[in-house]
């Protein structure tokens, strides 16, 4: 039997927190104990041999005749100190002012001076010569004092602070990792994309929340698919009666009436197509291909110019983007159509920049007030002008379709002020080097 990692962990967040607190306390305790034991060891090592100060005090109190015996005994007892006594008059070798002996000098009895013969290191003893008050020189090897001694209280507080910080950080990370996975899963949720199921693991509370979110996402996806199917079916079913009407209208004797009927049917057809296009969300069943954007833009401009509209194009000869030619054509057509319809003309400009491929479509119309721009990009929203015009406008999907197409191509669409007036629609598409995100169809 294999044990799932973490199977022995408590299942609920509350028990996990309790376990964490206990574990932290235990850990702190263990660390402090180890610290204490290590300090004890240090103490013992420092007790190796009498302190030089004590030795000097001892030597000072004795009469000089017996001093030699005393030092000789001490030297035998502590051979590592290599004590030597030189008679009075001998000049101590070494630097009598060395600052490294400042601490020692403070503790020496008055009348004695200390000189450093050979400096030591962390592992190596230093050689110190002390001139006693009667001129005799006692030299010995001693371990240099450790650096500034650290207050044990401060050490404990520091260790505790570090431990608590690390443990707290770890605990917060461990406990909130599933929550962060939640957040990113909710952010990344696209009803048209593959549903990446949230892993149902972690504490019980998180597991049930993950289950609930997974169910909710499946329901939302099913709902949206249902809606798409419904619209597609409606669009498809409308095509048959429109076809019949279209055919019947051909037999209307009155020429004016026939033209009107055909115009209405064309509008209905265009509306149904725009609805279906919008329901596709700018997605295409086919893989993206390279598109000669210049050719697409000039084709749209030529078509509008042929119908007598004031449409101009300016830009380089060949600019390529990656995408779906028909959808891009539809988006640009919608925007140019809006421009000539509400702005009287369309100036289309194309530029390849570092930031991407920029398409500007500008008109001379009233423009769109800044506060209305976000709303205008929403589906089924029409501007003031469009509402007050005759019945030749559609569902108000033109801009929305252009936007979903541009977004599906990894680009952006912005409504800006034209110069000197009018509306400027700016599309920025990624350059060819940048891959287009793959948006799988439902």
């Amino acid at each position, binding site marked *: 039997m294999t044990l799932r990692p973490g199977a022995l962990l408590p299942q609920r967040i509350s028990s996990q927190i309790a376990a964490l607190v206990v574990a932290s306390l235990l850990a702190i305790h263990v660390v402090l104990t180890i610290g204490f034991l290590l300090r004890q060891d240090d103490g013992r090592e420092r007790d190796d041999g009498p302190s030089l100060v004590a030795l000097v005090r001892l030597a000072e109190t004795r009469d000089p005749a017996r001093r030699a015996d005393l030092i000789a005994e001490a030297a035998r007892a502590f051979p590592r100190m290599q004590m030597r006594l030189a008679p009075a008059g001998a000049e101590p070798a070494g630097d009598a002012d060395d600052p490294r002996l400042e601490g020692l000098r403070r503790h020496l009895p008055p009348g004695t001076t200390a000189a450093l013969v050979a400096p030591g290191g962390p592992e190596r003893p230093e050689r110190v010569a002390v001139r006693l008050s009667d001129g005799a020189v006692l030299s010995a090897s001693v371990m240099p004092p450790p650096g500034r001694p650290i207050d044990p209280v401060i050490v404990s507080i520091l260790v505790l602070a570090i431990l608590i910080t690390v443990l707290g950080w770890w605990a917060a990370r461990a406990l909130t990792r599933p929550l962060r996975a939640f957040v990113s899963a909710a952010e990344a949720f696209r009803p048209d994309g593959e549903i990446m199921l949230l892993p149902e693991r972690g504490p019980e509370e998180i597991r049930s929340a993950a289950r609930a979110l997974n169910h909710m996402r499946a329901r939302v996806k099913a709902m949206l698919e249902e809606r798409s199917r419904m619209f597609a079916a409606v669009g498809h079913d409308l095509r048959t009666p429109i076809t019949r009407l279209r*055919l019947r209208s051909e037999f209307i004797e009155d020429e004016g009436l026939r033209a009107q009927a055909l115009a209405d049917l064309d509008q209905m057809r265009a509306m149904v197509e725009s609805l279906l296009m919008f329901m596709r969300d700018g997605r295409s069943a086919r893989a993206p291909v390279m598109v000669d954007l210049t050719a697409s833009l000039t084709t749209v401009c030529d078509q509008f110019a042929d119908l007598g509209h004031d449409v101009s194009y300016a830009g380089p000869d060949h600019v390529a983007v990656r995408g779906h*030619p028909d959808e891009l*054509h539809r988006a640009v057509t919608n925007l140019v159509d809006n421009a000539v319809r509400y702005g009287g003309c369309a100036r289309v400009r194309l530029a390849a920049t570092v930031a991407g491929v920029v398409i500007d479509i500008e008109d001379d119309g009233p423009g769109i007030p800044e506060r209305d721009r976000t709303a205008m990009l929403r589906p089924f929203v029409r501007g003031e002008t469009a509402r007050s015009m005759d019945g030749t406008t559609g569902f108000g999907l033109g801009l929305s379709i252009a936007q979903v197409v541009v977004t599906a191509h990894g680009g952006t669409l912005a409504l800006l002020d034209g110069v000197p007036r009018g509306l400027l629609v700016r599309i920025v598409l990624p350059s060819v080097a940048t891959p287009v995100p793959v948006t799988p169809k439902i």
Partner: protein
Amino acid sequence: MTESPHILVVEDDQEISRLVARYLRANDCRVSLAGNGREMDRVMDASRIDLVVLDLMLPGEDGLSLCRRLRAGSSVPVIILSARGEEVDRIVGLEMGADDYLGKPFNPRELLARVKAVLRRSDSGLRSPAGRRPRVMTFLGWRLDCGLAKLTNPEGGAVAVTGGEFDLLQALCEHPGRVLSRDQLLDLTQGRSAGAFERSIDVLISRLRRKIEADPHHPEIIRTVRSGGYVFTPEVSAS
């Protein structure tokens, strides 16, 4: 064509087939109707049919399957009608051997124009011996997909063209190295995009040059002939 063409409309919506029949008859065609595959077979056996207009969504055997069957047994031209209007349907339909494709709702005048264009092609022997017209033509790395009316540049990029521009390029490709006058080009391009608002041949040529020539001011692919016409210089291979 000496006598009026006999067209079979296979469509399950009776109102639509009745109206299509009426429109085509008014425009000098003989029309038979079939509501499904079995009726289609009966009519095909009983009389000589010049062209089949085939709806894709039929009760019983569907249009695609009928199209494949028609293609296997004869070389009768087929125009597909579909209400689905998806590009995929168009591709599949043309793969199945249909000569043209029209999405619903369609303009009956456009249907008539396409019927005439397909009949003209099959009469003039433009159809290849296999009974099919070349689907794809290539020149200098450019690719012309006649079924889908798509133009692809040597880098594999899709190049947008209008129906008129495409028809003109197709006509030029079908007659490489030959000087074609404006009138000849006009004749060759009539049909497909009937009713569309198209410019003169000269305007279309200059638009095409802008799209396919390296330097539109010094054209290498479509050359102007001084005596009044154009010649398509590259070699064209068809498949």
